[in-house]
């Protein structure tokens, strides 16, 4: 079974399989984003491949690749329960401002892709064309930006409820840091609430 899926993909799609990788039966293919859904449809329906289970869908942010329009890497993990083989499929999309960060939705191919794609949209900002209900799934609609992008500040919060002032609380709300300044986590996030979330557009 080794390399079967990669060989069949290269035979079927030729130069649109941009890159392949194979180590110890762990097979990976990078495909042209415009053929994302076609490749998946082929993998799902071909009787020799028969990838009937969508295991995982996520996205990884590579800011250094933004100049080439390949900032976000959409990663799809597939498994065939009948044939017992796996495949990892990737597509690289989007520039620094997430322009062009979109691929076709796979909800028609695997219905389970629905919530995965909503999560990827919520966390990383990839848009899935043709998704029946593409809105945030983990965060709230008022949230601005996508927290798993590398340029989202790690300490920035966007509270739904206003924090109390220390005058209202009557006690100091800052916690004593258990570590020194140069170690562990900071404990001063209250002052880092972004004053105007609408200015949080990806840069």
């Amino acid at each position, binding site marked *: 079974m080794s390399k079967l899926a990669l060989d069949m993909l290269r035979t079927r799609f030729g130069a649109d399989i941009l890159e392949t990788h194979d180590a110890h039966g762990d097979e990976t293919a990078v495909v042209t984003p415009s053929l994302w859904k076609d490749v998946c449809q082929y993998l799902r329906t071909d009787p020799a491949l028969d990838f009937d289970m969508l295991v995982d869908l996520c996205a990884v942010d590579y800011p250094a690749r933004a100049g080439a329009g390949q900032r976000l890497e959409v990663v799809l993990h597939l498994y065939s329960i009948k044939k017992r083989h796996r495949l990892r499929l990737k597509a690289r999309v989007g520039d620094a401002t997430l322009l062009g960060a979109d691929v076709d939705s796979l909800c028609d191919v695997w219905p389970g892709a629905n919530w995965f794609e909503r999560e990827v949209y919520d966390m990383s900002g990839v848009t899935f064309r043709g998704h029946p209900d593409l809105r945030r799934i983990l965060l709230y609609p008022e949230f601005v930006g996508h927290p798993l992008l590398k340029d989202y500040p790690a300490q920035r919060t*966007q509270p*739904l*409820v206003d924090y109390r002032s220390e005058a209202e609380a009557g006690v100091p709300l800052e916690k004593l840091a258990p570590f020194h300044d140069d170690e562990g986590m900071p404990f001063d996030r209250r002052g880092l609430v972004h004053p105007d979330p609408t200015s949080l557009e990806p840069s």
Partner: protein
Amino acid sequence: MIDLATTPTSAVIDHDAGFATTRFDALLHWAQKYSLFQYPFVTACCGMEFMSTMSPRFDLARFGAEAPRFSPRQSDVLWVVGTISQRQAPTLRRIYEQMMDPKWVIAFGTCASSGGFYDNYATVPGIDKIIRCDIYVPGCPPRPEAVLDGLMLLQDKIARGDRTAGVVKPRVDPVTALPGLRDGPDAPAEVTVEGVLDGDAP
């Protein structure tokens, strides 16, 4: 004659007359601290330790706090047990506002107290950022003994009539603070182990 204004106790025993006098607010606080109806706002893994504290081995009922009420309007103590995310924060604020006065809040565990190690976009860094909080119980999760200690600290606050948010004073043993029960002329004789073993005890 005992000066009521300076006596730190909640009851004064008059040994000759056979009745007890007290201040009304002390009586009220005594009643409140032993009839705490609780609202468990359980969101995360601390809930397992909360169940352990509630169950018979540790037995929260010994402190008059055994009755959970899943309506905030009927409850006195809000237990915030676990991590509070920014998305849950409006719900927690609403629950707190729906509770009737007098009401108290216990932050159960590190996440409820300070956000814990969730230092990110999604987690409220401590419930005192959005509601007032009386007692913080540290631990990840806290042991049941720590929870019981927190509950007794809250009872002390209630007995003092102390509504200061988040300020906890050292415990005072109520028995030692109650003159007359141990030191008076009618104080009961100590029952020793030897006496029981000798068969002299009733």
